């Protein structure tokens, strides 16, 4: 026999043949071809043999035999698929069979991934929502807001507002600025259409320049955007406002009356601002003309920082070079800075405002990037907990799959194939989990929307949403499946098939992962407890005033000039103890609660940055101190018996200290510049201190109590009414009186404690969210633990049987089985406690007045997790422990 070992049948023909036959069974035909080829080699030249091979291949390809075989193959389950797809389909089938066989395993994994996926989706929605603020502006990348920071003696302020002249002067001096606009917020207005009688309270009224439409992408529906606000008395209103006042008729040219004083004509209607805007104007009034706002807008000095100013850069202009020129600009108009004093303008990109700006004078309360990061971290951690469940369960039940792995390897599977198979299974589970997550998230959106006060909605109709989910499924299944698939595919077939399944050291890793899960759970739980305790602390803190049983009747200025009469009428109601009229209330935030501060100095010194005290200047009436329950510690409150009290002042303790009035402040005098909102530096005005009240929290507990001064004066924002007993009859009578005295004006009331609580809405929201997240984390971790105990106690069935035969009690075995997890949770607690301590301190640093978080909170969180974990392991431990040992030992 001639040997021509190097000669092989022509490759191309082989390929053609295999390709053409696809999945039809051709093993025998192929064998025939090859045998024939080698036989031919002995008889003829290589060339001819090859030619013959080709001939036979072609004859087979066109033969009836092959046509029939292909037809038959078409009825095969994996018909029409290549070998690879066939394997893929087979993996899928095996994967599903495994899920169905281990139902609890499937439920735990899919459930965990679904819950964490839903939480993650919610958080991502929230983040996407927060990040989408102001992006509706087509020129967003060129719009900057001017921020102003200044220090003057002990007064330091960082504001979102600037002097009136800043924006327009900047535009004149720097050609790279294309346009500027300003907003002036004077608070709420009672508004009615000229012909109507009833007024409606409008919260979102801003005075602005005619350029506003050039800068912000407000879509003007009616009217001329360029001219609408150029003339005095012009007002542009949002579509919903137009509908509110004028129905479906065109609003253009109609008149609106604000606070019964300002008659404005509608010159434009614009589309409602999207929710994701850092301001929500419903009425934009022209700053042209000759009313107080307009006069303030023309003030050319570099003080009175009341304007939110925006600039629009020309395309291609360099913002950094502009910023570099700002110090010189400030110096030019504000004078050079002396000592520690300074003034500074800065540019804030429009898109940063919502998440990165919490300055004084914001148009609305903004979001906070810290919470965006925090929630993102929570989402990731919750997802990791679910992934850990998958990893732990997959490795724990690896004994069950070991035989399969062994046989697959014997049959020629390579490690790569097995890895692929297990990754595919992880993909199936993750995919199923995330599909359920969409449904769950849909249910949760309502809850989260109400907690976060944001209109969150799943973008179910957007293709990119599904694409993103697909990618996320891929990533998570890789994350969760990578480790188990490598462990499982690494079994040695010989030892596995002999029955020796080595779990090796992955028990340690599994314990580590369980510890990690509980570290996260304990952290979130401590977080939830802390935030809740701080919220409770805020509610119960002694504030220096009595917040309960005080009714606030809003917008008392609508009663003018009869607010005094209303007050006496209210005082006649039997349940009412005292009443007061003042716009200043110890609650902060929103345009409902105005603040006014002014610089004073102690009489006998020259005003300079060293002794000027920036102090809250509140106008109150005689009954303010009694009605709010302030504590007079020195001197007396205002009294009608002293006519000289019109030039008197009552300071809070901090105020008296700040002026350095010594141990006996009564009778000393403080001075300030005359003039209204615009100070008149030439005419100082003096006030005599007649009393000192104890410090009370008139601002958020996040801040120190500042200096405050009460003056007798007219300020009719609220009528505050202290009452006894049931508020309902009091409210009814107040409303009746209001209707009589201020016909057509809305009667609006609330309670002081309610308004106070509203200041901490953010914290209350956080408390709820943390509670929910902590609960989810613990639930997911515990269902993982539940399944894990099932497997471990199953593995130890024999051991338990032998222990029982040798006399162990059920209790001792339960204790033994639970003991292991107890150890893990103790370790988790030891790891989590210091981390939690750092986190808690970091968060509480926001507050000047904070609750003392004792060890109790940590102990409670740790114990709670321990108890929950015990309860989850209990079921399987107890079942294993109480099983009949005869059965467990006998079964092989």
């Amino acid at each position, binding site marked *: 026999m001639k040997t021509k070992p190097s000669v092989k049948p022509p490759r191309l023909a082989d390929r053609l043949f295999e390709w053409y036959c696809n999945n039809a069974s051709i093993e*025998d035909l192929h064998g025939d071809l090859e*045998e024939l080829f080698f036989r031919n080699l002995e008889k003829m030249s290589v060339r001819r043999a090859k030619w013959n091979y080709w001939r036979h291949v072609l004859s087979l390809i066109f033969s009836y035999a092959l046509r*029939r075989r292909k037809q038959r193959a078409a009825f095969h389950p994996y018909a029409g698929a290549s070998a690879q797809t066939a394997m893929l389909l087979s993996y899928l089938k095996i994967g599903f069979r495994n899920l169905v066989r281990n139902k609890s395993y499937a439920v735990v994994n899919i459930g965990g991934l679904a819950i964490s996926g839903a939480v993650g989706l919610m958080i991502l929605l929230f983040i996407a929502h927060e990040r989408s603020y102001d992006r509706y502006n087509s020129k967003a990348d060129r719009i900057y807001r001017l921020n102003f920071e200044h220090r003057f003696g002990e007064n330091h302020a960082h504001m979102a507002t600037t002097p009136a002249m800043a924006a327009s002067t900047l535009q004149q001096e720097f050609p790279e600025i294309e346009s500027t606009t300003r907003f002036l917020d004077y608070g709420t207005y009672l508004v009615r259409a000229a012909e109507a009688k009833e007024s409606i309270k409008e919260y979102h009224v801003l005075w602005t320049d005619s350029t506003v439409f050039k800068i912000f992408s407000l879509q003007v529906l009616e009217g001329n955007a360029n001219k609408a606000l150029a003339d005095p008395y012009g007002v542009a209103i949002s579509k919903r406002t137009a509908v509110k006042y004028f129905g479906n008729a065109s609003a253009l040219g109609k008149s609106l009356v604000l606070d019964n004083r300002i008659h404005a004509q509608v010159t434009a209607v614009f589309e409602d601002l999207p929710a994701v805007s850092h301001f929500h104007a419903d009425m934009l009034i022209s700053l042209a003309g000759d009313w107080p706002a307009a006069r303030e807008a023309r003030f050319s000095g570099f003080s009175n920082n009341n304007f939110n100013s925006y600039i629009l850069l020309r395309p291609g202009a360099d913002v950094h070079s502009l910023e570099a020129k700002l110090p010189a600009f400030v110096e030019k108009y504000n004078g050079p800075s002396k000592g520690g004093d300074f003034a500074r303008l800065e540019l804030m990109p429009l898109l940063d405002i919502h998440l990165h700006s919490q300055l004084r004078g914001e148009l609305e309360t903004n979001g906070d990037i810290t919470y965006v990061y925090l929630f993102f971290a929570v989402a990731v951690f919750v997802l990791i907990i679910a992934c850990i469940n998958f990893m732990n369960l997959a490795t724990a039940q690896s004994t069950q799959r070991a035989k399969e792995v062994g046989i697959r390897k014997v049959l020629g599977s390579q490690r790569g194939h097995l890895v692929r198979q297990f990754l595919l299974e992880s993909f199936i589970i993750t995919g199923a989990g995330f599909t359920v997550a969409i449904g769950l998230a849909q249910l949760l959106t309502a809850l989260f929307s109400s907690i976060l006060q944001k209109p969150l909605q799943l973008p179910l109709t957007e293709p990119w949403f599904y694409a993103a989910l697909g990618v996320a499924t891929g990533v998570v299944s890789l994350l969760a499946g990578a480790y188990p698939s490598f462990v499982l595919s690494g079994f040695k077939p010989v030892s596995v098939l002999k029955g020796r399944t080595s779990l090796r050291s992955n028990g340690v890793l599994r314990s580590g992962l369980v510890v990690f899960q509980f570290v996260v759970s304990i952290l979130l739980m401590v977080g939830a407890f802390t935030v809740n305790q701080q919220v409770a602390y805020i509610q119960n803190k002694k504030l220096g005033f009595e917040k309960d049983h005080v009714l606030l009747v809003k917008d008392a200025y609508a009663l003018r000039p009869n607010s005094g009469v209303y007050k006496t009428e209210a005082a006649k109601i039997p349940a009412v103890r005292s009443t007061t009229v003042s716009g200043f209330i110890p609650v902060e935030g929103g345009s409902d609660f105005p603040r006014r501060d002014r610089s004073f100095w102690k009489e006998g010194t020259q005003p300079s940055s060293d002794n000027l005290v920036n102090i809250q200047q509140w106008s109150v009436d005689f009954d303010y101190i009694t009605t709010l329950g302030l504590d007079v510690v020195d001197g007396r409150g205002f009294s009608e018996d002293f006519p000289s009290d019109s030039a008197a002042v009552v300071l809070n303790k901090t105020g008296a200290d700040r002026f350095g009035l010594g141990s006996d402040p009564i009778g000393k005098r403080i001075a300030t510049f005359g003039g209204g909102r615009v100070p008149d530096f030439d005419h100082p005005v003096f006030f005599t201190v007649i009393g000192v009240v104890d410090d009370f929290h008139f601002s958020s507990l996040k801040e120190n109590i500042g200096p405050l001064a009460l003056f007798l004066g007219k300020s009719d924002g609220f009528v505050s009414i202290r009452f006894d007993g049931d508020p309902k009859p009091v409210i009814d009578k107040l409303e009746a009186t209001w209707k009589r005295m201020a016909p057509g004006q809305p009667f609006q009331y609330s309670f002081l404690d309610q308004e106070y609580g509203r200041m901490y809405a953010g914290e209350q929201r956080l408390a709820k969210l943390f509670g929910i997240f902590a609960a989810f984390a613990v639930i997911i971790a515990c269902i993982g633990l539940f399944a894990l105990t099932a497997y471990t106690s199953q593995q130890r069935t024999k051991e338990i049987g032998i222990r029982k035969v040798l006399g162990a009690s059920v209790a001792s075995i339960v204790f033994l089985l639970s003991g292991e997890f107890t150890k893990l949770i103790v370790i988790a607690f030891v790891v989590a406690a210091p981390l939690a301590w750092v986190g808690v301190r970091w968060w509480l640093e926001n507050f000047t007045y904070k609750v003392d978080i004792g060890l109790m909170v940590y102990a409670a969180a740790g114990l709670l997790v321990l108890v929950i974990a015990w309860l989850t392991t209990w079921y399987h431990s107890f079942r294993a422990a109480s099983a009949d040992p005869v059965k467990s030992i006998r079964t092989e």
Partner: protein
Amino acid sequence: MKGYIGEFEELVLLTIASLGENAYGVAIKEDIEMRADRDISLGALHSTITRLEEKKFIRSWLGEPTQERGGRRKRFFELTHQGKVALHEIKALRDELWKLSKATLTLAK
């Protein structure tokens, strides 16, 4: 007549019968080529085999893999009862005709 058998089909059937336990593709092909001195393509042969199998005249099974043929298994064939009946029928027909035409078919010397 029940099943029609073509000339080549008959040849294949008889060859399978003659090869006994070693009746597989290449062996059948070589045997026919040797005896009949004609060139058969594998396609033609297997097509015929497929038809015979569908007529249930033969049945087949895969053998054990061996070192030869790249480890590929051979498909072996054997006659079924129906196959044998068919062969008998055609042989009977032929014999009858031979008998009848003995005089005419004598080869001239």
